[in-house]
Structure formats: C-alpha cells, structure tokens
C-alpha cells in the first residue's frame, strides 16, 4: 500500500520536473524560431542559445525516467498504455527526435540556419501537445476492450472538447513558463531589450493560461464526474495555485524580483499539478488500471526505490555542479566565459 504511493509520488515528481524543464526548453526553442521569423533574432537568440546549450540533454532524461519508471512500478500500465498509444506515442517520438537532432544540428553544426531553427522550434511546441493526449486518455471514456485487448477510440478522442482544451493548456503553459524563466535569465545577463521582450511575452501568455486551466475543470465536470468531485474537495490546492499565479503576474508587471516570480510560478504549477494528480488517485487509467492492482511485486518495488535513492545521491551533486557552472555563474551567463 505504502510502496505504490511512494512509487507514484516519485514518478509524478519527475513528470512535474519534466513539465517545468521541458517547458522552458521547448518554449525557448519556439521563441528563438519566432524571433528569427519576425527578424528580432538579434535580441533573443544569444541568451536562448547560451542557456540551452549545456542543459538540453538533461531535459530528455526526465521524460525517459518517467516512462521507464512507470513500466517498473506499474507493469500493467505498459500493457494498456503500450497497446493504445501506438499512434500518439509514435508521433510524439518523431517530434522528439526531430526536435533533439535538429537542435544539435543547428547549434553545433550550422549555426543560425533558419530552416533548422524553425524545425526544432515548431516540433518542440508540438511535443507537449502530443504528450498531453495521454492525460486526456487517462480520464477514461476513450478506451474499450475488444477480445480482451484494449483499443483506442480515435474519433471519440478527436471530437472531444476535453482533448483540445488540454492541448491548448499544454501549449499556453509551455510558452508562459518559458517566458517567465527567460525574463529572469535575460535580466540576469543584463540584456535590457531581451528582458523587455520576454516580459511582454510572459504577460501576454498569463491570461490565456489561466483561462485554459479553469476551462479544463469545467470540461471534467462533463467528462469524468468522479475526478471533478475529487478536484473540488481539493479546492484549497487550486486556490493557492491561483494566488501564486496572481503574485507572479504582479511581480512581472512591476518589473521586480524576476527570480522570485519564477519560483512562485513553479509553486503555482506544483500545487495545480499535484492537486490534479491526487484527485486522479487511485486510477492510472479510468477505470481499467488503478495503482493498487497494477502494482509490481514488492521485491521489484523495493529494489527500484533503493536504486532511486542511490541514483539521486549521484545525480543531485552533479546537477548542482552543472547549475553552478552555467546557470548561476555570473561570468558565464554574461557571456564572458
């Protein structure tokens, strides 16, 4: 009982990490491409390249960690999700592959190549959209059993307003998270023009984000009432999240404490994301898999948790070193090294 809670919490935490790091990464790629198309490359590309270059591989690992972990902790989900996600999963993989490769092709090989930059900027924006479909499917109603095998109802998924609201939310979230982070980062580098431009993007994406997020709660009322009611009973988590959103926007509006603004934003997403996750409990896929039935054997669960702790003991110091050298090193971010 306690083991599966530990398992799902670890996985959810990593998924949260992926959402934040991935959003910064994918949004940055998109803003870079957008600035090239609109001829404002001189303002943005430099800071974006400087931030992205040393950290891009790290982003992908969060994602791999999540899907490898879920197969380990909840093997049954490999069977269900594996069978139904063939097409959406493959499309997401193609986008991830184009994004990762063309990013490297552009930054290490042909710097400033327009076509490559646009290719990875656009594919990056579509990755969260394609991955978010998994969240929609997990709400139930799109999977039925045929001869005991799960089958995905593509047309129901395509015509569901829930699908498209989640897609819109994922895109808005990517652009908002990324813009807030880059405002802070640009400000640290002392680049006024870039800070102002990113600040403008951050403010303009803040409202669509909150509308899309609230819209989904309404959609859920029609789609999955259990989940909706669970969400309501956790209303305080969403209230905190909303307050944090207001505070972030106020700070950015007043051009103050961009660093604090970014941490408030992280808090806003943490409360909303964990509120959503807790309300989803105990189902991984309504109503087919719950974390209790789908859980692995205790020997495997304990081994995975031990490996996880050892792995973290290795990774946290290395990540700290990476951040210290690049993200928080004044000389590096100002372009002196």
């Amino acid at each position, binding site marked *: 009982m306690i083991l599966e809670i530990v398992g799902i919490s670890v996985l959810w935490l990593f998924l949260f990490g992926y959402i934040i790091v991935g959003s910064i990464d994918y949004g940055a790629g998109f803003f870079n491409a957008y600035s090239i198309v609109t001829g404002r490359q001189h303002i943005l590309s430099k800071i974006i390249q400087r931030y992205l270059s*040393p950290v891009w591989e790290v982003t992908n690992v969060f994602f791999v960690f999540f899907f490898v972990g879920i197969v380990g902790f909840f*093997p049954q989900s490999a069977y269900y999700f594996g069978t139904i996600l063939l097409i959406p999963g493959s499309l997401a993989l193609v986008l991830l592959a184009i994004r990762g490769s063309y990013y490297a092709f552009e930054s290490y090989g042909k710097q400033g190549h327009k076509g490559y930059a646009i290719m990875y900027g656009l594919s990056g924006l579509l990755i969260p959209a394609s991955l978010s479909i998994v969240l929609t499917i997990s709400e139930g109603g799109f999977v039925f059993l045929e001869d005991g095998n799960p089958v995905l109802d593509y047309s129901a998924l395509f015509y569901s307003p829930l699908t498209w609201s989640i897609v819109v939310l994922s895109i808005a979230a990517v652009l908002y998270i990324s813009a807030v982070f880059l405002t802070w980062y640009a400000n640290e580098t002392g680049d006024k023009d870039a800070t102002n431009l990113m600040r403008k993007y951050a403010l303009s994406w803040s409202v669509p984000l909150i509308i899309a997020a609230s819209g989904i709660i309404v959609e859920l009322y029609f789609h999955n009432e259990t989940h909706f009611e669970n969400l309501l009973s956790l209303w305080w988590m969403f209230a905190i999240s909303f307050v944090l959103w207001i505070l972030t926007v106020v700070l950015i509006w007043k051009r103050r404490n961009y660093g604090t603004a970014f941490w408030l934003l992280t808090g806003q997403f943490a409360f909303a994301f964990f509120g959503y996750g807790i309300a989803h409990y105990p189902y991984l896929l309504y109503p087919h898999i719950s974390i209790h039935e789908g859980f692995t054997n205790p020997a495997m669960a304990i081994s995975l948790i031990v490996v996880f702790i050892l792995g973290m003991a290795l990774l946290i110091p290395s990540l700290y070193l990476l951040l210290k050298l690049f993200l928080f090193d004044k000389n590096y971010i100002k372009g002196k090294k």
Partner: protein
Amino acid sequence: MTLFEDPAYASRMLTLLTLSFHIIYATIGVGVPLMIMIAQWIGIKNNDNHYLLMARRWAKGFVVTVAVGVVTGTIIGLQLSLLWPSFMELAGNIIAMPLFMEVFAFFFEAIFLGIYLYTWDRFDNPKKHLLLLIPVAVGGGMSAYFITVVNSFMNSPAGFDIIGGDLVNANPLLAMFTVSMPTKVAHVLSTAYMTIAFMFAAIAAFRLLQKKNQEYHKKSLHMAMKIGLIFAVATALIGDLSGKYLAAYQPEKLAAAEWHFETTTEAPLVMWGVLGEDNEAKYALHVPYALSILAHGLPNSEVIGLEEFPADEQPPLVIHYFFDTMVTIGMFMIILSLLYWFGMRRKWAFVEKTWYRWLIVAGGPLSFLAIEAGWWMAEVGRQPWILRGLMTIEEAATTSDYVGWMFVLFAVLYFILGVGTVVVLSYMFRKNPVEKDLERMQGGESS
C-alpha cells in the same frame, strides 16, 4: 503485404529498423569518449598539440551523434512498450531495474558531457578538464552494460518462477546476473571500442589519401590502429567464450548459426556456402574440428545439432550468414591491424601504400557492418522467442493496427536523421579544417 496486415511481423520489422539505426549511434556513444580520453591524455603528457586537437575535434563531432543517439535511444525505450506490450508487462515485473539504472547512467553521462564541452578553457590545470571525461566514459560504458543486461535476460531468463501463468518469487538481482550476461556485456563493450578505433583509423587513412595534414593524421592513424588491434584481439577471445556459452545454454542458436544439423563429435566449422538439398552446405569452407573447439574447447567434443529441437523452435538458418559476416570481418580487422603494427615497427613499405590505406578506410564501415551482423545474429537467432523458452514474439506483440504505417513513418525519420548527421558533420569539418584549428590553437585563441 504482411507488413500492413500482421502486427507481430510489422513490430519485428520496426524493432529491427530502430535497433539497426540506433546501434550505430550507441556504438559511437560508448566508444568515442574513451578515444577522446586517450588522445587528450597523450596530448597533455607529451605536450603535443596534435593530440589535444584530436580530442577537441572528436568531441565536437561527438555531440552531434550523441544528440541522435539520445533521441533514437528514447525511441527504442518507448517503442518496447508500444510494440511489445505483453512482454514489457512481464519484463516490468522482473527486469525493470537495469532499465531504470540505465537512465541514471545516461543522466550522469549527459551532465558531465555538457560540462566537459563548455569548459575547455575554464580550468587552469588541463588535467582537471580531462577528469571530467571519466564520468562521461564510465556513464557510456554503464549504459551499454545495463541495456545488454536486459538483452541477456531475454536470452537466458532467470530470477523468477512461473506458477499457473503468474510470475512469482521475483528476484530482480538474479535476473540481472544471468549466465549469458558476462560474455554478452564483454563482447558489446570490446566491439564498440574496436569499431570506434577503426572508424577513426578509417577517417585518418582517408585524409592521408587526400594528402591532407600528414603529421596530424599519421599520429591519429597510428594511435587508432593500435587501440583497434588490442580490442579486436580481445573481441576474438570473448567471441570464443560466447561460443562456449551458446553451446551450453542456447545450443539451438549455435547450431543454426553453424548449419550444424546432426549431433556429432569432431564437428567442423562451416563458413559461408549455400544450403543444398538434404541440408548439405555447398561451396562452403569446412574448418575441421573448429566447431567442437569453439563449443567446448576440445576437438573431439560433442556438439548438439539442430535436429534435436522441434521445428517450430528452430531459429532461422539465415543467421549463418550473419555469424559468418561478423567473424570474417573480425578476422580481417585483426590481420589488417596486426600487419600495420608490425609493418610500422619493421618499416615495411607496403603498410603506407595507397592500396593498404584503402583497406584501412574500408575497415571503418566494415566494423560497423560486423556490429550490425552480430546483433542480427543475436536477435534473429532467438526466434521464435522474445523471452527464450517462455514467451514467443507472437504472444508479446501488440494487437494494434497500423504498425506497418509506423514502420514507414520511422523509416522516413531515420532517413532524415541519418542524412542530417552526415550533412552537418561534413559541413562542420569542412568549415574547420585541421590546419585552421591548429593555427588557432598555436595563436592561443579558443575555438
């Protein structure tokens, strides 16, 4: 077409495609950090700019291939669940641990690679910068180790019991340390180092043929051929042990690879040839006693023939050619690098002749072909099983439609990524020739 009608067949083809493409980048990912490390170490020790530049240029090209390796690795990781959901459900219960650890190993490698690449001139003591490569090389080796552990498990499953269709008494540690693991891991690592050494030798030989910067490329060629020789010999020794493992635990795979149909003593090794009627190998090269020696170390020992296995559990006979390709190339590379090494010491002129250089150039792609052939032999040779003796590929494969279309989609993707890699790498090195980089280094400028 079967590809569009049979999901199990299409899943096999797509896995074949993804693995064949990924293994090229994975081999580079495992092998290159070691080569960079050796070059940089020699460079620092002898205070020789040529070796330092080698390390720098290799690292520059390496990041591009790492990126493609990362994304294709992500693809195969997720495709395992998408194409073989029943297998992954079972595997998740017993062999998830090395998969999980592989992610950590890769994470570790990625972080230090990022730091290494951007800190060429940030340390006052260059040895500190070299130290950063250790976690990169170790991480790469560990990734290969963990993934090969999973593949070993598929060949010799252990660490659990199946009672009434349910998996019980799971022991994740026993599942990791299976009988096939030591030989497989050693073989994968040594072939990766060998192949990458010969890849750099091929590049250097090609540049020498073009009369490019002689001194730099001669040093590079010499170093790569020596490292290649060491690992080629190691590979042959480990290959011999792999044969003994197969004879003891997967005799059907060895028998199919050798076209050894009847159980006999003093078995000859059949190389190449064409299978005629009555399973008679025509035009083949028979090496007397060699199969008995490969299998058990003694010329008169008994080797189990394919006839002892039911027809539906016999691996396809085509793996004979995969085995022969692998072994022939391996032997060729040992002879080629040994002659080169002797030739350079004894000042034999022919090792520096154009035709010999061309043979070295061919050695690069041939080594990669040997890696591919080895994996085809390992994977096709496990047929019809995905988990030997327990689960067939038919039972494991997805029931979804459209797998055939996904094959087409990924074939297009790999084509784009493959062409992209070649275009970008050749552009990078054409724009920054060795001469230019050398001038920059001597001028004290950072690149």
